[in-house]
């Protein structure tokens, strides 16, 4: 047996789809040539700076690739140039995103000291040294308004989703359509609407008005995500519940909703993340207040307005405070999103 096997020459498996070493070396050479060219371009012309360098690279890379690959024929050349263009454009888009996060981190961290999150601006002017004052009032204000908005919009959003998926009423498709359209309402229009009703009737800016403006913006997000989640519930569950003699109300509340509890939490978090950074509606509804607020009928601070008003002062320390607020806001939004994503991943595994 062994002799026969030894006699047969087993061919080593070839994997033509794996990238060859040559390909790798070739792309490395092309890349370095374009790097040199774009460096030359950015240092000789006025389109300078780091961004100019990258944009130059985005232009040089396809050109270099084209010159190299033209000897392989038209189709191959087009394919390679297309790949390099796509890669270059991807890079051009991603660089500003990275720049946003790193700039906010670099400039924002300068505003931080041990009391930044525990003091407000009651006794501090925005231009004062950065060892005094903080963003507590803004954080508290955002939390309060987001909480009130969630208490209203989460039940309403889930109700709309139940109407579309479970009841399938006469207006189901139009509710769905208008909820989609509502998510495109400009945030400043929502603010203007609340101002024209609540603020004019009850006289002036208040935390309530800000929370209601948030509600309008949050509702469509919650409704749409809950709808997607409700659709995940298998029909067998509903059928089993009906077969046991349960009413529809009972089926929804004791079978369908508990099954997707995590999904509903996710939809609420996504709604919060959507509104937490909204500035425009609060300018018209909640305005700004320098102390930590205790009265919901008064104007209240919030992180976006804290950033906005500090930026408007033009003072160096105030601008740094604005960056500090941006860092807090960015962290809040990113954490909310990560939590929502983690929860929905757990749900889909179930």
């Amino acid at each position, binding site marked *: 047996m062994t002799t026969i096997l030894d006699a047969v020459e087993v061919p080593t498996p070839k994997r033509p789809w794996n990238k060859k070493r040559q390909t790798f070396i070739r792309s490395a050479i092309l890349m370095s040539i374009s790097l040199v060219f774009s460096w030359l371009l950015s240092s000789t012309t006025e389109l300078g700076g780091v961004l100019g360098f990258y944009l130059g690279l985005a232009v040089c890379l396809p050109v270099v690739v084209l010159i190299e690959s033209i000897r392989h024929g038209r189709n191959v050349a087009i*394919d390679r140039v297309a790949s390099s263009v796509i890669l270059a454009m991807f890079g051009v888009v991603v660089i500003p995103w990275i720049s946003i996060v790193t700039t906010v981190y670099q400039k924002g961290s300068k505003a931080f000291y041990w009391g930044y999150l525990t003091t407000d601006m009651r006794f501090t002017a925005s231009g004062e040294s950065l060892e005094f004052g903080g963003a507590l009032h803004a954080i508290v204000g955002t939390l309060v308004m987001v909480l009130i908005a969630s208490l209203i919009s989460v039940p309403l959003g889930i109700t709309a989703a139940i109407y579309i998926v479970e*009841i399938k009423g006469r207006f189901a498709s139009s509710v769905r*359509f208008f909820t989609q359209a509502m998510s495109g309402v400009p945030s400043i*229009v929502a603010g203007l609407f609340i101002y024209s009703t609540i603020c004019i009737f009850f006289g002036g800016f208040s935390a309530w008005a800000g929370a209601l403006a948030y509600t309008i913006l949050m509702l469509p997000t919650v409704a749409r995500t809950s709808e997607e989640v409700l659709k995940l519930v298998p029909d067998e569950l509903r059928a089993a519940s009906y077969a046991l003699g349960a009413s529809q109300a009972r089926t929804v509340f004791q079978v369908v909703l508990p099954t997707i509890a995590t999904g509903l939490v996710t939809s609420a978090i996504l709604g919060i993340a959507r509104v937490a950074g909204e500035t425009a509606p609060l300018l018209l509804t909640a305005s700004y207040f320098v102390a930590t607020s205790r009265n919901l009928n008064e104007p209240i601070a919030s992180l976006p307005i804290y950033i906005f008003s500090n930026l408007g002062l033009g003072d160096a320390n105030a601008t740094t405070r604005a960056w500090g607020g941006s860092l807090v806001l960015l962290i809040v939004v*990113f954490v909310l999103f990560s939590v929502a994503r983690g929860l929905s991943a757990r749900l889909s595994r179930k």
Partner: protein
Amino acid sequence: MIQDDLVPQHRKLVSSYTLVDRIFRRVITTGGLFSLVILGLIGAFLLYRGFEIFSDFGFSFITGEVWNIGDPMDTSTAVLGIGAMLMGSVITSVIAIVIAVPCAIAVALFIEYYSPKRLRLILTAVLDLVAAIPSVIFGIWGYAVLLPIIEDWSVPLERWLDFIPIFSVPSGIFGRSPFLAGVLLALMVIPIVTSVAREVYSQAPRDLIDASYALGGTRWGAIRNVVIPFGRSGLVGGAMLGLGRALGETVAVYLTLNLVFDINFRILGSAGGNVASLIATKFGEATEYELKALMAAGLVLFLVTLLVNFMASFIVNRSRKIL
């Protein structure tokens, strides 16, 4: 006889809902219709508050370029028109879409067809995350980082492209220009358009792509002839969604564009505005009459974005149905 007993009688089937269910359905229906009611109320209240303006100025409120309250005591001296701002909204949004759509196509194709699987999962998560960055942060970044760069670049751009009217700047003042606002809006819109495009591209029929490879086609050949035609209508819908977002953006435009009441087609020059930033700017010190005009401007903005969004969701829904 015995067999007759064994054959079960037909049960009486009840198809009407019990009392509990009828109440439940009524309550849920009321709640479900709430979003329709809110949309209607927004339109109705803004129309109610701004009606005086529409009856005073008529169509010239939409086309007029002047915003002058005149004598604060005498409303008949006021001349108010949002033509310049409306045009500014359109110009900045068009710049944004022209930049954003090719970039979004490239990023979506890169994520779906060029990146390895692990990177693809990371990038889809990053895309969601970037879409969630608040507009005020885009605004402060655009003001602090992008403004100096665009200002530097506008000078050579103007010198080289002077012969094209939209790039010439007779005033010589660059900086907070519609071009800057447009680039910033493009960055905000790219994640939205990309995630729609990526979703559509990922559903392109695998067998057609494989067939294209089997005929000896290249990767670009498959993308050009299968993926892109397949995703065309979805992409149009995504672009419309992005357009709606760009039209209604307030803070980012407020921070990066000088509000000037003049229709400005010279996109590198430092003048412009949009309807949303007009409202944010004038709101603070508005007289009662001007406030009504702002409500009317808000109504116009509301109707325009609603129209764009209706069209977008119509197109996106239709392309989903085909899939």
